[in-house]
């Protein structure tokens, strides 16, 4: 069999054809412009960095990283997400900038996935980070921005699920179980394996309030239900104050007229060890995976020697395009043709100056030019 590797591309990566690239860039530009209008400044970081840097953030899982070795034997990795590089950047080069810092990005990120999973190994993430403000207003700003961006992009049917990892952390800490038991229960909560959670509750003989609280964590959702649970009392100190914060943030969102887009789900934990407060995920009708996600990560910057609270979110552009089902606008413009190249060239420049694309016809045959214009959806501009 002839080896065809030169003609194919690896699993999990893809080419974007002109129409797809047009749709991709159009929506990317709109969203980035929107971030900038909110005061977020774009930063660009390297595609690869030292492995140690990425190991400070979420996705520490070595298996999901694309790693390679430079000529001096240092281990490098392709970036799997943008928050960690930005934390590194802020802790080094942006240390003296006034706080809070608002930064945004649009970048290709890379994750190793088993090919049969049918997931992209390279994809585009757009996101923001709000650094240096630990207050609830910062949580509200980032959530509001996430909602407004999805509205701007034209996603009609979406909701943000709002959780708070500190509630779960508080309940887990109060279980008084050996570390191994806490890890197992955490694992069952993280993967929402209710069957395993029940068997662990039995195994560790958890009863009364502890049992009820764990079951509530796994299944409780909806504003009314969660808030009623908070009012019941009996929650460990850390969990109670975390819930109070969640309620405050939610009330602000409602006051801003954005309440319809969010719902409570304490089962949303995302990268549990990395996030410290509010977490959220955006879901759209017809998409089997979250469209966007984020939360508060007050511990990350400290790992780079610059303790700073921070909150942010990222959205996957490919997933967004899938939801929108967009193919991009029709191509518009002129095919400028004629016997004299200097003249068509001058005319094309005028057309472009008015903001309309002008394509040069590389020939002199008018009939051929007409045919080419028709085939490409351009209007013919014949310059004698």
């Amino acid at each position, binding site marked *: 069999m002839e080896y065809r590797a030169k003609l194919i591309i690896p699993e999990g990566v893809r080419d974007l054809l002109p129409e797809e690239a047009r749709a991709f860039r159009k929506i990317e530009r709109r969203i980035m412009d929107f971030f900038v209008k909110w005061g977020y400044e774009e930063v660009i970081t390297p595609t690869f960095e030292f492995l140690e840097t990425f190991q400070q953030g979420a996705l520490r899982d070595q298996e999901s990283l694309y790693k390679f070795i430079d000529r001096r034997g240092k281990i490098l990795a392709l970036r799997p997400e943008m928050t960690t590089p930005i934390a590194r950047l802020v802790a080094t080069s942006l240390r003296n900038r006034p706080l809070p810092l608002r930064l945004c990005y649009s970048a290709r990120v890379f994750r190793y996935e088993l090919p049969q999973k049918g997931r992209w190994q390279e994809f585009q993430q757009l996101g923001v980070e709000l650094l240096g403000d630990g207050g609830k207003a910062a949580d509200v700003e980032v959530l509001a921005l996430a909602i407004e961006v999805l509205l701007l992009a034209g996603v009609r049917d979406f909701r943000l*699920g709002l959780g708070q990892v500190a509630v779960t952390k508080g309940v887990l800490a109060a279980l008084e179980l050996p570390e191994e038991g806490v890890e197992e229960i955490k694992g069952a909560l993280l*993967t929402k394996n*209710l069957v395993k959670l029940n068997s662990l509750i039995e195994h560790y003989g958890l009863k009364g309030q502890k049992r009820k609280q764990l079951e509530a964590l796994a299944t409780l959702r909806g504003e009314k239900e969660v808030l009623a649970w908070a009012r019941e009392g009996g929650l460990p100190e850390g969990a109670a104050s975390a819930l109070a914060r969640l309620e405050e943030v939610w009330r602000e969102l409602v006051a801003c007229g954005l309440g319809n887009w969010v719902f409570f789900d304490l089962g*949303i934990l995302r990268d549990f060890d990395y996030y410290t407060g509010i977490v959220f*995920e955006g*879901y759209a009708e017809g998409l*089997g*995976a979250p469209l966007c996600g984020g939360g508060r990560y007050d511990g990350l910057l400290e790992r780079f020697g610059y303790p700073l609270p921070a909150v942010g979110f990222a959205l996957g552009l490919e997933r967004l395009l899938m939801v929108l089902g967009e193919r991009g606008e029709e191509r518009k413009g002129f095919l400028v043709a004629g016997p004299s190249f200097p003249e068509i060239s001058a005319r094309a420049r005028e057309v472009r100056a008015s903001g309309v694309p002008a394509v040069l016809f590389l020939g002199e045959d008018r009939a051929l030019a007409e045919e080419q214009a028709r085939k490409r959806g351009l209007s013919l501009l014949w310059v004698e």
Partner: protein
Amino acid sequence: MKKMLTLAIPKGKLGEETLSLLKRAGLPWEGVATEDRQLIFTFPREGFTYLICRPVDVPTYVEHGAADLGIAGKDVLAEARADVFELLDLGFGFCRMVVAVPRQRWEEARGKVENLLVAGLRVATKYPRVAAEFFHRQGKPVEIIKLYGNIELAPQAGLADVIVDIVSTGRTLKENNLVEVVSIFSSTARLIANRVSYRMAYNLLEPVIEALKKAAEERRDNLVARS
């Protein structure tokens, strides 16, 4: 139009049990067959679509959101490691994931697992990830040979030293002169959910989950009462 809820149902023995559970739960079931050419059954009035899948494919349909809910054996879930929510133990389809060896080899190991599980074993299985993880935890590097069926043939044919497979009664093992030496875990059918559906369509899913939960409990109670 009413939003449809899609349920992935496995073919085979698990499928039959699933249908009787649906019936017990008061969910539509009439005319549904798991061993038929028809693979999609819709009940527009009740708002259900059933997909009849190969058991190993159920987690994939649910993970990607092609189905909101699905029914899959724990053995299949452990192998697939799909990113899905595991909501209920339905109690049927009981089997165990075991390590089994030819009787002669077991006698040579003088009936001791530690004599048997040595590095370099050749392990034939339909469950390469489960097998690899088990031997990894034992600290034994082994060679995993992926097969698609009739695993018990492999040791007899000299393809492998041991097998990792599911057993329910143990008859097949006996007939092939194999001895079960380790039980890795026991498995039953589970109700799984797509993680976005579970959150976006919760109001739609919740009554169905509750009905299946009640039906599974009823079924269990009946079995206990009968025995």
